[in-house]
């Protein structure tokens, strides 16, 4: 009897265990209500199918854009075929319908507006920074959130739209932005914030191929415009704040096959590695986030490199830190570095070296002009990188550069307590580009007159996190901007025009002897190329931080400027951090 009871109890205990498990399993399954037995009545559709105002395709004009045609881009002034308008980076157009004499009559022709639809929670988001590309009446424009638009260049009608699906959790340095596309052989090439190079069919906007080139987990992204050189498309990396290792990549135009990658920070044993201590090279920075220029005769690509990592603390990286904050002259066929010139050796001010390198000739000599963030205009012999001249073009207190030899003498470096230094971390000229007019033989540059309090701080590296080694606060200082004209033959300033805010938009020069200059307060100005006098201005309604271009359709000259206040505002114009946001492309023409 006792045994029977014991068995019964054990059975009951076993039953209780099983019941508990069943209950847990049921709970685990969620005990959810059954799904309704409703048939599918609705199907998702892409936005394109819900926008009857869109034409859906563009004329196949881009099919005829060959690498050979890009070599002669300046000979097609009705188009703006490549990022700077031509390989030399001059941002000069031979169009002369709009002149000093008639520019005062310039009127709006059309406006293209876009609005973010998303959650990227940054006040630095809402900015169109691109240089629109124009091919025979079709304009290709890129924007934030992976957008690329094809527009009718005469009317602004939207032909097609592509949006790359960019995850929310990618690392941005300075805003949800993109600086433009490249167009060739029927394709539109664009980099994405999650590190891909995407080739779109230029007629339909549909993706043809995509290739990864940036390590998003390390903090890399792609923001710069690709550059087509011969049968390759070159694209740089972004993310210099995250202790990455910068590189430039080349892909086959047709297939997207990677042809080469060139790191800008050498590994141990490679040339230049002696400028780095053990291990520091792996986080050395030197990103390549601004498009390069190209000399087809020398067959050299000139590409700027960004700051070393960490930004403000040179302690972990004694040495000159090649090839950061420099220009590298690259063989486009294999990415080999033919020569280099370092603007800021052992940079501890975040001055980068990415700004454009403008190619021009003087007295039969092939030269290169570069307005560096460190506040100096450099002139180099672009055949071999030999120093010609350096001239300060803004307030400079960080150090001195011998105008005759180029020898750099640092004077003030960031301290743990903090010290005031000019220029600020965004530099005396931010990335927006200068221009060179072969008519006036002058260089024109936007100027950021911002200083900052630089503080060296703790330096700890963790993949995907900021690797700054300090900070720079631009807030307590007086700030303004200028457009300045320089004679590259002497380095002398010819004229200056002052803006109440730092000038952070690229300049455009034309054969009408007009310089177009956007301002941070939204004004778009036409200046006399010879005197700097303001000839015309128009309030676009929002800050300009982009690349204006000019082109013509059916004999009519247009000037286009994207706007939208954003980017690294606290670096280059903190007094406008709270300014309103909004984005549009404004296009002007004579009546």
């Amino acid at each position, binding site marked *: 009897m006792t045994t029977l009871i014991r068995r019964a109890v054990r059975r009951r205990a076993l039953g209780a265990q099983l019941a508990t498990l069943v209950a847990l399993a049921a709970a685990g399954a969620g005990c959810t209500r059954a799904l*309704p037995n409703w048939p599918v009545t609705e199907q998702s559709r892409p936005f394109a199918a819900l926008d009857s105002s869109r034409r859906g395709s563009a004329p196949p004009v881009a099919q005829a854009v060959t690498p050979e045609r890009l070599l002669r881009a300046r000979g097609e002034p009705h188009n703006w075929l490549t990022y700077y308008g031509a390989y030399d980076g001059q941002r000069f157009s031979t169009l002369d319908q709009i002149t000093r004499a008639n520019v005062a009559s310039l009127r709006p022709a059309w406006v293209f507006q876009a609005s973010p639809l998303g959650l990227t929670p940054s006040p630095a988001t809402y900015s169109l920074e691109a240089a629109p590309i124009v091919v025979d009446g079709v304009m290709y424009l890129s924007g934030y959130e992976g957008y690329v638009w094809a527009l009718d260049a005469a009317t602004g009608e939207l032909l097609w739209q592509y949006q790359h699906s960019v995850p929310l959790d990618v690392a941005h340095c300075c805003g949800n932005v993109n600086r433009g596309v490249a167009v060739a052989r029927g394709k539109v090439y664009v980099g994405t914030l999650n590190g891909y190079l995407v080739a779109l069919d230029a007629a339909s906007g549909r993706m043809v191929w995509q290739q990864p080139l940036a390590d998003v987990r390390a903090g890399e992204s792609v923001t710069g415009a690709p550059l087509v050189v011969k049968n390759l498309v070159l694209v740089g990396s972004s993310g210099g704040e995250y202790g990455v290792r910068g590189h430039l990549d080349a892909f086959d135009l047709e297939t997207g096959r990677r042809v080469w990658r060139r790191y800008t920070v050498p590994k141990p044993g490679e040339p230049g590695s002696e400028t780095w201590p053990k291990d520091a090279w792996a986080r050395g920075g030197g990103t390549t986030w601004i498009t390069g220029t190209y000399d087809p005769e020398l067959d050299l690509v000139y590409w700027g490199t960004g700051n070393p990592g960490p930004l403000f603390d040179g302690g972990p990286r004694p040495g000159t830190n090649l090839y950061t904050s420099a220009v590298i002259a690259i063989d486009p066929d294999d990415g080999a570095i033919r020569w280099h010139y370092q603007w800021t050796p052992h940079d501890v001010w975040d001055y980068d070296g990415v700004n454009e390198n403008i190619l021009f000739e003087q007295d039969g000599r092939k030269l290169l002009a570069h307005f560096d963030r460190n506040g100096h205009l450099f002139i180099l012999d672009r055949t071999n990188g030999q120093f010609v001249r350096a001239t300060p073009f803004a307030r400079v207190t960080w150090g001195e550069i011998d105008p005759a030899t180029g020898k750099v003498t640092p004077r003030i470096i960031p301290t743990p307590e903090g010290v005031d230094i000019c220029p600020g971390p965004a530099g005396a000229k931010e990335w927006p580009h200068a221009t060179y007019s072969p008519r006036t033989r002058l260089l024109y540059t936007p100027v950021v007159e911002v200083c900052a309090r630089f503080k060296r701080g703790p330096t700890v590296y963790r993949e995907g996190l900021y690797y700054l080694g300090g900070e720079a606060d631009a807030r307590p200082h007086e700030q303004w901007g200028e457009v300045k004209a320089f004679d590259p033959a002497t380095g002398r300033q010819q004229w200056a025009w002052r803006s109440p805010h730092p000038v952070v938009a690229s300049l455009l020069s034309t054969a009408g002897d007009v310089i177009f200059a956007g301002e941070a307060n939204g004004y778009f100005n036409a200046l006399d190329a010879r005197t700097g006098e303001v000839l015309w201005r128009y309030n676009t309604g929002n800050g300009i931080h982009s690349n204006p271009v000019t082109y013509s359709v059916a004999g009519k000259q247009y000037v286009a400027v994207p706007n939208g206040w954003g980017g690294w505002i606290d670096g280059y114009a903190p007094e406008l951090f709270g300014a309103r946001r909004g984005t549009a492309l404004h296009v002007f023409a004579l009546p």
Partner: protein
Amino acid sequence: MKSVARCALALAAPAVLGSCDYVRLLRPSVLKQLNPPVVRLVNELPRVDDVNEGLIGGLFARGGLGHAKVGGDGVMRATVRIPAGEYLWRPAIIVMPKGGELELDIYNEDPYSYHAAVLPSLGERHALMLPVNSHGKARIRLDQPGYYWFGCPVANHVTRGMLGFIFVYGDTPAEAKLDRPPQPRPRN
């Protein structure tokens, strides 16, 4: 007989327990996440995550998380429900184990409102209308790892709770990785 039952129980228990989300909460890796701020949030949920209780809206997190299942054709599939009167996607987080195509069956069981879904997809966002008591189907493509948002564009339903996320698991493709030794991660 008794030993057979015990043996069966011993074999079945891990499988049952492994599939039981409540029991999986007891894993050390999960318990480690229950730090004081998270515990405070969970304790506050009845107040802040119910429509018109502490707040007018609700937190998206209450919709929970669901996994898309990979079909024989390689397409990942998940079901999402919009419950009555809650301004909520259930689940609010959809996990894709890898990049690719995702097919969503969405049921609007909310008798108080029609809804809609704006969804991310490579090339162009998608829109799906969801009348009251309807069943809609979305087919989207998300190739690359990271997380993406989706939401209901009707009125301000997104900010009242109808904000959802799609997690795409994966790593940077090998050809895009930096040539350097492994680096310390944030929690190292």
